[in-house]
């Protein structure tokens, strides 16, 4: 008898065993374990009730045709709508109240991200190789609000709102295009700098803006000493301060300063408002001649600025200038250091400085830079950056575990520490802290350019 005929019974048995394996593989789903646990809890909570708790094992799906999503999250997250589970651990915990955003209309993944179609933990939450978006961490979740609410949301999504506000306050739009939003130059114009500021101050400020003005919105361009000197040399081209200021009386000046209400907007040595810059070190920065001009008619110098014409008489202004020159010198500086910085700038290369100014994109925040007018694309377009594919994002040398290789993580690192990934990156450092970085990341994540179905748009004045 043929060998195969002999083998037939054993092969048939083996195939039957494998068939049992097939059935087992299909039956033994991971979600069943969660459902059994939930049923046990449900029985406990329903103990003593007139009818036993009804529970059906199996997959639960919310299919929302207009959004094209089929969310199966409730297969494991079974206590979502049941207030009895508010103290139970995940995945059974009751969902916080979201009256206007019912599950029937919105599903889950529209706000939370993740792979709604999956029924296993790793695939559903991600990141996973064959799904483009992992579930959002709680801290970034408000980004989803902007899909429908755009930028009209405020207190209801505080993190998102803060990020949105910061994004424009810090002038990100100066370098990064977002839709049709106009560029606003948040920094002062840089014309005639030689008439306005001292050489050594220019160098120090370019080297580290926050060292002069801790609350400045200007980021640190991370120049090397030579680069800072080159840029200072470029900006300080042209004639120096003109005219002289007749010296005034510092003591009278102090009185005039206080009576003129300068402290309403300016801080000196820790006291005052923060509408205008801190004046604690202003005389290390500006020449007296310039200070005189600023106080006399600020709008002539900077029409878009906030400082009004105060109508202070000239003599008082001279006194105030004297006061500022004497008292507001900032931290003491070693004379030889200052001389050295002056020397560095004098010997620096203006041409290299200009190259740096163009490359760093100073023009994104500052107007009127001599000889620099074209505004090309300084940073990537962020209009739909929230929907960028992870394959376009390079983590460089940064060691990030696989589970964190997601778009939100990359954006967070970029915002917090722009040059952390590798050498040769251009974006300056704003020294944002954790909370600020999270907020801005949330805002950027929300920039998805996604169109929502018409049936989801509520006409103004109507309630859902």
């Amino acid at each position, binding site marked *: 008898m043929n060998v195969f005929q002999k083998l037939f*019974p054993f092969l*048939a*048995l083996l195939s039957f065993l494998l068939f049992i394996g097939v059935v087992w593989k*299909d039956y033994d789903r991971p979600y069943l374990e969660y459902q059994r646990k939930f049923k046990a809890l449900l029985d406990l909570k329903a103990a003593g009730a007139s009818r036993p708790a009804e529970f059906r094992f199996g997959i639960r*799906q919310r*299919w929302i045709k207009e959004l094209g999503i*089929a969310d199966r999250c409730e297969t494991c997250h079974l206590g979502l*709508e049941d*207030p009895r589970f508010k103290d139970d651990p995940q995945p059974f915990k009751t969902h916080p109240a979201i009256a206007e955003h019912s599950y*029937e209309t919105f599903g889950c993944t529209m706000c939370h991200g993740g792979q709604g179609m999956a029924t296993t933990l790793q695939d559903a939450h991600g990141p996973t190789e064959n799904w483009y978006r992992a579930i959002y961490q709680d801290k970034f979740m408000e980004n989803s609000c902007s899909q429908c609410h755009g930028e009209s949301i405020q207190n209801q999504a505080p993190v998102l709102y803060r990020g949105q506000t910061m994004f424009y306050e810090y002038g990100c739009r100066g370098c990064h295009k977002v839709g049709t939003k106009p560029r606003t130059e948040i920094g002062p114009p840089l014309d005639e700098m030689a008439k306005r500021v001292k050489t050594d101050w220019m160098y120090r400020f370019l080297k580290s803006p926050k060292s002069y003005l801790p609350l400045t919105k200007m980021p640190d361009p991370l120049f090397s000493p030579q680069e800072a000197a080159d840029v200072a040399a470029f900006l300080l081209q042209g004639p120096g301060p003109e005219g002289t200021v007749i010296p005034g009386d510092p003591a009278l000046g102090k009185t005039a300063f206080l009576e003129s209400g300068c402290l309403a907007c300016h801080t000196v040595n820790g006291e005052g408002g923060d509408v205008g810059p801190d004046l604690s070190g202003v005389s290390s920065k500006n020449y007296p001649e310039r200070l005189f001009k600023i106080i006399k008619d600020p709008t002539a110098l900077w029409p878009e600025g906030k400082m009004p014409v105060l109508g202070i008489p000239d003599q008082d202004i001279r006194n105030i200038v004297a006061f500022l020159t004497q008292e507001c010198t900032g931290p003491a500086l070693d004379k030889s250091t200052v001389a050295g910085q002056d020397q560095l700038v004098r010997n620096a290369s203006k041409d290299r400085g200009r190259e740096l100014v163009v490359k760093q994109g100073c023009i994104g925040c500052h107007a009127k830079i001599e000889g620099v007018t074209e505004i090309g694309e300084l940073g990537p377009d962020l209009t739909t950056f929230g929907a960028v594919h992870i394959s376009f994002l390079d983590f460089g040398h940064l060691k990030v575990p696989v589970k964190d290789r997601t778009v939100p993580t990359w954006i967070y690192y970029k915002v917090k520490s722009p040059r952390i990934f590798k050498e040769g990156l251009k974006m300056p450092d704003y020294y944002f802290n954790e909370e600020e970085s999270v907020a801005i990341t949330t805002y950027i994540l929300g920039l998805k350019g996604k169109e929502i179905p018409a049936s989801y748009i509520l006409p103004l004045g109507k309630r859902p």
Partner: protein
Amino acid sequence: MAADLFTRRNFLSRVGWLAAFGTFGGLTAASGRYLFPNVLYEPPAEFKIAPPEEYPEGVTFVSAKRIFVIRQQNLIRVVSGVCTHIGCTVRWSEERNRFECPCHGSFFDENGAVTAGPAGKPLPWYGVSVAADGRLIVDEHKIVPFRQALTV
């Protein structure tokens, strides 16, 4: 011995055929199970409508779901609005106190029982309960007998 050998070969052969049929029969059964979907891409049979307070006394038609919500003081019931003849949506006539089907003239009383027309079966009552968030849940898969209403 010849008899032993014969029996063993026969036994093995039978086991073989049995196992083979088991496998193929099993795979066929698995294919059968496969054909029954576990999730439906249809509007769900169990859905929520407004809380009971929002339904006035009498008959309210919920057109989106083709059901009638009927309130008598504090008793609520949900009756299907699909005519049991061929499936047109019936209308409630307040004056004549009955459901009327515009297609072939079937009439149903306020309980859904057939009073006239080609329809043979009464309009079913759907299971209704109150959800944890206070809204009514209607379950079209649960047909409840007449006279069983929800007390709110």
